[in-house]
């Protein structure tokens, strides 16, 4: 069958977007109100001769949003200065004669207006353009944090440079992290994707990334910053051995309503609306995103001649409410997110006469969470965060079926007590309860049965309802001993699937060497419960123990100037009790991982003009699959990882930026030879007698992504074009290997060619 590679329809998408801009512009011009209402005839009749004084109300606004500009400076012809009020308005007594007024606010271009132009009008609106960016003032500093490996990136930085403009994927560009282009999941210092914690505030979302869309489920407009720790984190987080990513929702109230849309053809569209409510004291925001890939993809595949059907879809909706109080705030979030995929593809394991196998996948969740932050008295403050959730997962593969529904409630309660000076005491608890309805029809893997073939093995049907509880507490304290800050902590925990509890002691410390240099470190135990399927009595081993890791970190932070920061760390991490397959017990705790390395982070703090950073990691990740066995390279082992990220504002309306990624190739287990298994009529890979797992490595990977953004400003709205190219590389990069049917040929699965794109965003 001859196959043709067809060009992708991004050209059609670009033309459609251009048409939309044209229509948008025309509509706005029709709607833009006339400023400077003409005098009524009565006013004109009674108006004195041109030399007489008059008053006019000046309304100063930001061009592109229409937001009022408070404290804008108005310089009159005689040098007198006036300032606009909170609403951006000021009343001017226009002098006799000619002259100009100058309207100015730092960060905006000054506007000059002739007195004659203002005379005879009741009100005049002046829209200030953004000023040429300067590098004079640092907007956001990389702050020193008490935890050894924590870094914070603002949303403003993240939406520019993160893959997909998705703040939750910023960790991929930070030190200590391995990543893959096609997946949002991260590997942190050798720990797999499932071994890191993702939260939005204090809520554990059932999933943080759309599996199909590869975007996080929270729109960036609702976020304030992203906090990320690669290890050595405090006692407030637990049940993971890798890292912690926390997306913090915003805590500010806008002055005016805003509506934003995004059109991305042929993928998805997004709408976002926020408005001040309750007399401008509170924020209410709503967002909806939905894909429409499923309408375009079948057409593209049909034209390309591909013998498969792919119907992916994803979406999410959110409501967010923020109510600040005198001594804290209340936040409420309601989220619904879903992903789905239907695949029909040719397969040797197909049971249908067409020779095609089906794969259907759908996952969704709803979550309602409340965060109540309050000062209890002059010493105590509290944050209470309950949330309820419902999560459905359905997977159908050929004639196997997995259907898991989980409903639950989790309550976080955190307390802080001010002690003497800067010393603090922290207490917290985390209680969870859930009910899972599990229905599975699948073969039980039996590696000891030489006739076992997953495609045709007898199915086991499991239908059960299980409840689970989780309980954890934590205590920590900040103790200042001169220039030394010690933060010891302890976290007791219990997870019902393990039928036992434990506790993790931890210590973070920081020593201020001088004004610009801090020595810091952490040591601690980080335990993780086994996954539910690993302790299941049918598909796993109920007697598994907790996975335990020890983290050791030593680092030096230096502020070279107010523009430049550096952070150098060495780390050693040992994880014992990793879950491995077992021919007798199905699963065991015999695995072990040792991860060690060095990280360098050099950050250029954000100014109006520029921000960026360099992140480099050197690490070795070695695994042992059973006691007394040799160590081998780990499943996740990228020896060198380098990221260079930056954004530069050329003019008030043009941005340029990009990211350069390089990492050592991923490991994989090579096939030494194959056998034909006559029981199954299949070829099976075999390793050599002395072959170690993950003994081969893909070629090193590199990728350059560059973009330009251009704002088109209207009085009260803005359009932003973003143009760019992703996956620029010297050649298409190897992402994995694939073997032919008898393992006599191994080829690299290559990533995407350079992909140019255009995106349009609008804000009203």
């Amino acid at each position, binding site marked *: *069958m001859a*196959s043709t*590679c067809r060009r992708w329809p991004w050209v059609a998408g670009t033309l459609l977007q251009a048409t939309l801009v044209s229509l948008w512009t025309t509509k706005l011009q029709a709607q833009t109100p006339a400023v400077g209402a003409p005098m009524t005839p009565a006013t004109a009749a009674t108006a004195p001769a041109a030399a007489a004084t008059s008053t006019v109300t000046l309304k100063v606004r930001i061009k592109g949003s229409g937001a009022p500009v408070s404290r804008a400076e108005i310089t009159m012809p005689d040098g007198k200065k006036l300032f606009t009020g909170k609403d951006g308005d000021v009343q001017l007594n226009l002098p006799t004669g000619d002259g100009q007024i100058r309207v100015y606010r730092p960060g905006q271009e000054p506007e000059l207006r002739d007195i004659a132009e203002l005379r005879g009008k009741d009100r005049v609106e002046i829209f200030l353009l953004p000023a040429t960016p300067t590098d004079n003032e640092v907007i956001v500093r990389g702050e020193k944090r008490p935890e050894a490996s924590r870094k914070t990136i603002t949303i403003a930085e993240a939406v520019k440079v993160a*893959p*997909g*403009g998705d703040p939750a994927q910023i960790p991929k560009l930070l030190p200590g992290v391995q990543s893959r*282009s*096609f997946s949002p999941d991260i590997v942190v210092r050798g720990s797999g994707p499932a071994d890191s914690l993702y939260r939005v505030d204090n809520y554990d979302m059932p999933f943080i990334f759309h599996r199909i*869309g590869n975007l996080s489920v929270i729109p960036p407009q609702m976020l304030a910053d992203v906090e990320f720790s690669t290890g050595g984190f405090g006692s407030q987080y637990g049940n993971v051995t890798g890292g912690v990513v926390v997306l913090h929702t915003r805590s500010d109230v806008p002055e005016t309503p805003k509506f934003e849309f995004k059109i*991305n053809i*042929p*993928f*998805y569209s997004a709408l976002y609306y926020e408005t001040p409510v309750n007399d401008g004291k509170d924020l209410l925001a709503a967002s909806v995103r939905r894909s429409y*890939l499923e309408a375009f993809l079948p057409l593209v*595949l049909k034209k*390309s*001649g*591909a*013998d*498969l059907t*792919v119907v*992916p879809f994803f979406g999410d909706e959110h409501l967010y409410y923020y109510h600040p109080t005198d001594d804290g705030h209340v936040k409420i979030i309601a989220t619904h997110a879903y992903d789905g995929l239907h*695949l029909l*593809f*040719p397969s040797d394991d*197909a049971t*249908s*006469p*067409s*020779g095609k196998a089906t794969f259907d996948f759908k996952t969704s969740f709803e979550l309602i969470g409340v965060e109540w932050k309050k000062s209890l008295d002059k010493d105590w403050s509290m944050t209470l965060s309950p949330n309820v959730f419902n999560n459905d997962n359905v997977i159908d593969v050929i004639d196997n079926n997995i259907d898991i529904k989980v409903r639950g409630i989790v309550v976080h309660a955190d307390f802080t007590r001010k002690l003497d000076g800067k010393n603090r005491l922290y207490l917290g608890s985390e209680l969870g309860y859930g009910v899972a309805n599990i229905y599975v029809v699948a073969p039980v893997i039996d*590696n*000891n*049965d*030489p*006739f076992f073939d997953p495609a*045709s093995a007898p199915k086991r049907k499991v239908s059960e309802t299980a409840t689970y509880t989780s309980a954890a507490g934590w205590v920590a304290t900040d103790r200042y001993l001169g220039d030394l800050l010690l933060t010891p902590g302890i976290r007791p925990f219990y997870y019902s699937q393990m039928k036992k509890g434990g506790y993790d002691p931890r210590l973070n410390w920081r020593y201020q060497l001088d004004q610009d240099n801090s020595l810091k470190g952490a040591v601690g135990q980080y335990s993780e419960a086994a996954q539910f399927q690993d302790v299941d009595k049918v598909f796993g081993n109920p007697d598994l123990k907790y996975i335990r890791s020890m983290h050791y970190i030593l680092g030096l932070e230096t502020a070279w100037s107010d523009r430049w920061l550096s952070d150098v760390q060495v780390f050693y991490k040992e994880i014992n009790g990793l879950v491995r397959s077992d*021919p007798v017990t199905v699963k065991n705790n015999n695995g072990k991982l040792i991860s060690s390395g060095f990280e360098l982070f050099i950050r250029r703090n954000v100014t109006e003009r520029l921000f960026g950073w360099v992140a480099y990691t050197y690490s070795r990740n070695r695994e042992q699959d059973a006691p007394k066995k040799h160590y081998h390279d780990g499943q996740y082992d990228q020896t060198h990882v380098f990221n260079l990220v930056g954004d530069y504002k050329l003019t008030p309306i043009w941005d340029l930026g990009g990211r350069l990624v390089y990492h050592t190739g991923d490991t994989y287990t090579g096939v030494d*030879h*194959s*056998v*034909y298994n*006559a*029981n*199954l*009529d299949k070829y*099976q890979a*075999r*390793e*050599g007698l002395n072959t170690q797992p993950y003994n081969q490595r893909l070629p090193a990977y590199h990728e350059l992504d560059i973009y330009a953004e251009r704002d088109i400003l209207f009085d009260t709205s803005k359009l932003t074009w973003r143009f*760019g190219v*992703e996956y620029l590389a010297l050649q298409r990069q190897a992402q994995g290997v694939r073997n*032919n*049917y008898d393992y*006599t040929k191994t080829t690299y*699965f290559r*990533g*995407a060619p350079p*992909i140019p*794109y255009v*995106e349009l965003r609008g804000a009203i």
Partner: protein
Amino acid sequence: MMRTHFFVLVLGLSTFACNGDADRYEDIQKLRALGVLSDKAVVEPSTTATPQVVTLTFYAALPHGDTVTAEPYQDTATSSGGTPATLTVNAGTAVVETHASFDLYHVSGTLNIPPVDALVFRGLDQNATVKYGIKLTTKSSGSQNIVGSVVVYQSGAAQLKSLAAIPTVKITAPAKSAALSGKQDIVAAASTTGAETLRLGWFVNGGEIKNRNAAATTWDPIKTTGAVTLVVTARGAKTGAFALDVIDFTAN
């Protein structure tokens, strides 16, 4: 960006679908194992008085003009269950049947079944397996390591009768020696009196078979013309009991 993953998804799947024809499982262009016929579908353990011996016939497709040597082979896999036993390749049993597009090669070997105390009986069925292996090497068409298992039940077990049958399989369409054009329906009739289902497998020297495990499916010649040799195999899902059929026809 979303655009990125859209392209990656389509590119990956298109590659899967578009490039699969370059190396398809059913396409025979070199030495290819087809299956192993045992003279006993199931067997009981040896005793001192009654040693159990199984004769295995190994089938392979061989390009015209090449020659094969056969020798015992030990599988290196430790995860698959069963008791290993050494195969004895029976000298003088190699046969080459000439067909239109390739030869059908088969050779026999003998496997001694261990006694009951050397076997591990497991599972709901309480059966044991004895593993064997053979390596076929040609001068210019590569080599094949063939492994498999013989199923053993305790003396007196009901399965020694219920699973004893050797299946049969016959290609009912297209007809032997037919001259055909374009896509063809290919149909096989497979049956067994044993208490197990049969897995089918089609092989051919060119073109594409839509579903190589279906009893009835279609063959698309693509660019194949001239002599075509079509093979169907059937094997028991529980015992591996084996049968095959071969026909030649001409594609115009």
